[in-house]
């Protein structure tokens, strides 16, 4: 049993920490959010130079060969800085789908570009009626000659406005909630019939709704076997779910640290408010929630890196996301409460951390959804 980070993991952690500290203060972040792109291309280039974009890829694919624990280490630090760059959607989700499902041609065309920072992908899977179930797919894929014609609408596609290529889930066959019959297609964001309605999320990221109207792609744009993408899609979303949970663990650590610090300096009734037991116990509860969240995420990361079957891994991820969601609500709400009025203003980072963790709770399924999924697996 060993819960310490390897030397490589420590280096990875330090490199992200250093970046967040030097390049990502709250005001710089705010400036980045206000740009049209909504993320910093300069930072993205730096991510490539630092090798972070290679982390999700195996060594055979020319990557770092990062496992779930590596991903957890990075995401925690990203969470502290509330990064808005599309790392999770492009590198982790899009990259992993190409790596796991793509043929040699697709992989050699796309993976080097992704790792070099020249290509950003986004995964379009959620639909208005699907809620958090990625296997509920109404978008249709109809074969026509050697082509496939896609029709449907996707919602909340993280990083869509930044992406050159969308990876779209669509149904070749089967009923709306069947696992069988789901395929993934590589679709140029600029292709005729693709319309992206961009929006900025509550936590400062770029996202968008995507409609597909008679979008024609060649059959060679399909990732993997026809109708057989469900398992790979679920696995990637599970990995992204763990990443989101890890990001929340980092952000919650920040929320706790900032709250404790504030309570030591803010004076009312002639004394620091941190001396009040009513507040001390609430901060102790925040600490407990942070530790339980970290513990369950570590557990899930280890299980993802182990030899268990897909169902066991999925169950571990749902356990973690559900538990972290519960922590998020307490830690986020109490951080704002203990900060008092300043906590609900736009000028302080605490409110923005609260927004980030709130978004992370619902991303890839909130606490209630994952509790139900856990119980059903």
């Amino acid at each position: 049993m060993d819960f310490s980070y390897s030397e490589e993991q420590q280096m990875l952690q330090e490199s992200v920490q250093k970046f967040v500290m030097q390049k990502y203060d709250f005001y710089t972040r705010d400036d980045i959010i206000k740009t049209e792109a909504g993320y910093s291309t300069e930072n993205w280039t730096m991510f490539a130079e630092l090798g972070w974009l290679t982390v999700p890829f195996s060594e055979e694919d020319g990557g770092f060969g990062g496992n779930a624990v590596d991903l957890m280490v990075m995401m925690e630090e990203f969470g502290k800085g509330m990064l808005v760059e599309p790392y999770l959607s492009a590198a982790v989700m899009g990259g992993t789908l190409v790596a796991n499902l793509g043929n040699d041609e697709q992989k050699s065309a796309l993976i080097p570009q992704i790792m070099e920072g020249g290509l950003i992908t986004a995964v379009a899977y959620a639909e208005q009626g699907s809620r958090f179930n990625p296997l509920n797919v109404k978008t249709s894929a109809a074969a026509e000659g050697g082509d496939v014609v896609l029709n449907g609408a996707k919602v909340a596609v993280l990083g869509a406005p930044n992406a050159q290529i969308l990876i779209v889930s669509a149904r070749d066959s089967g009923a709306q909630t069947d696992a069988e019959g789901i395929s993934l297609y590589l679709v140029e964001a600029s292709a005729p019939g693709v319309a992206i309605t961009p929006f900025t999320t509550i936590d400062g990221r770029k996202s968008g709704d995507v409609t597909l109207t008679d979008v024609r792609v060649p059959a060679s744009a399909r990732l993997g076997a026809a109708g057989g993408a469900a398992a790979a899609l679920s696995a990637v979303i599970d990995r992204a779910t763990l990443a989101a949970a890890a990001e929340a663990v980092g952000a919650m650590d920040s929320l706790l640290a900032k709250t404790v610090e504030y309570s030591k300096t803010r004076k009312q009734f002639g004394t620091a408010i941190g001396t009040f037991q009513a507040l001390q116990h609430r901060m102790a509860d925040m600490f407990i929630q942070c530790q339980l969240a970290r513990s369950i995420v570590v557990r899930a990361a280890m299980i993802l890196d182990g030899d268990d079957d897909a169902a066991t891994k999925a169950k571990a991820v749902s356990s973690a996301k559900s538990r972290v969601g519960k922590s998020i609500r307490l830690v986020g709400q109490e951080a704002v409460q203990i900060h008092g009025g300043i906590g609900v203003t736009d000028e302080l980072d605490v409110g923005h951390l609260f927004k980030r963790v709130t978004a992370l709770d619902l991303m890839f399924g909130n606490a209630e959804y994952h509790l139900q999924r856990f119980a059903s697996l």
Partner: protein
Amino acid sequence: MNADFTTEELAFQSEVREFLANEFPAELKHKVDNRIRLSKEEIVRWQKILHKKGWMAPNWPQEYGGTGWTPTQKYIFSTEMGLMGAPEPTPFGVTMVAPVIMAYGTEEQKQRFLPDILESNVWWCQGYSEPNAGSDLASLKTMAVRDGDYYVVNGNKTWNTYGQYADWIFCLVRTDNSVKKQEGISFLLIDMKTPGITLKPIVLLDGHAEVNEVFFDDVRVPVENLIGEENKGWTYAKVLLTHERTNIAGVPRGKRRLASLKRIAAETDDGFGGTMAENADFKAQLAEAEIELQALEYAELRTLAALSVGKAPGPESSILKIVGTELAQKMDEMTVELAGYNCLPFVPEQFEEGFEGEQMGPGSSAAAAINYFNNRKLSIFGGSNEVQRNIISKAVLGL
């Protein structure tokens, strides 16, 4: 990063499992499974079996007859014990007073007391709390006044667990009234047969008297029963209170409880033609409890991993106490919820040694309310959960 046991640890785990399967007496297991109280004789019998194997004192150094186990081995042992339902040795001797005697006692005291603890020849009990000194233990008032070669003790202690079985009691007594309250306390060992000691049982909500009040009326205690120096008792007491408690989180017990809850839910009608196992709200509660256990288990493993590389058990262990007890209480509450009307009959004697009749109600519903009431103590004793939150605030958060 990995949560795997080494080959040696796995071999040790098998050895523990085999030992428990062969040596934990079936009659005792039956009683534990049916929540029937074990008698003093049965507890002692089991402890002697542990001692014969050399496993009575996992937390003692080898020179005193301890196991010399690593933190991971101790964890494996207490986990397997918990999964089997085998009771850990009563803590008052082996876990509480013994480490104090080892650290601060004289050579003579060590020889006089430690072997009998190891062999379960002597039953110890605790004399800490007083009616007006609970969480604020240092305000205790029981006085010990020196008179020649004796201390004369007057006062009373309370919440004394199984004092009715005890041969000896370790006590915190006040030996100086003129100084700061922590600086006038001494640590005294008292033979329960000494004239002037009387016990008054305290009946708890489950109808059983597992605790007592202890009255000291001019009790003469030889000065050689003082541990360490006079007025230094508070320091020794704190060592005892912070002494590493194995299995504080209660994860194995929690796993047994959860399995039992699932079993009972499947056998309990929901009143609408289905079972409680299919009830959406109850299913969610079960899932939440299971997830909490997983989080707690890994919080404990992370603490254990830190211990294994030589870090001291930090105030973080307060988390394990708070979360472990709150989860145990939540599961008690769920048992009551499942039992419905079946937990209404109050028949405490059905859990006592010698009860001949059938236990009332299906499954363990007969015990549901009894356990729910009794286990409210979990968040109160051992440093109430509020005190644990004070510890986290001060020692971890620096507030």
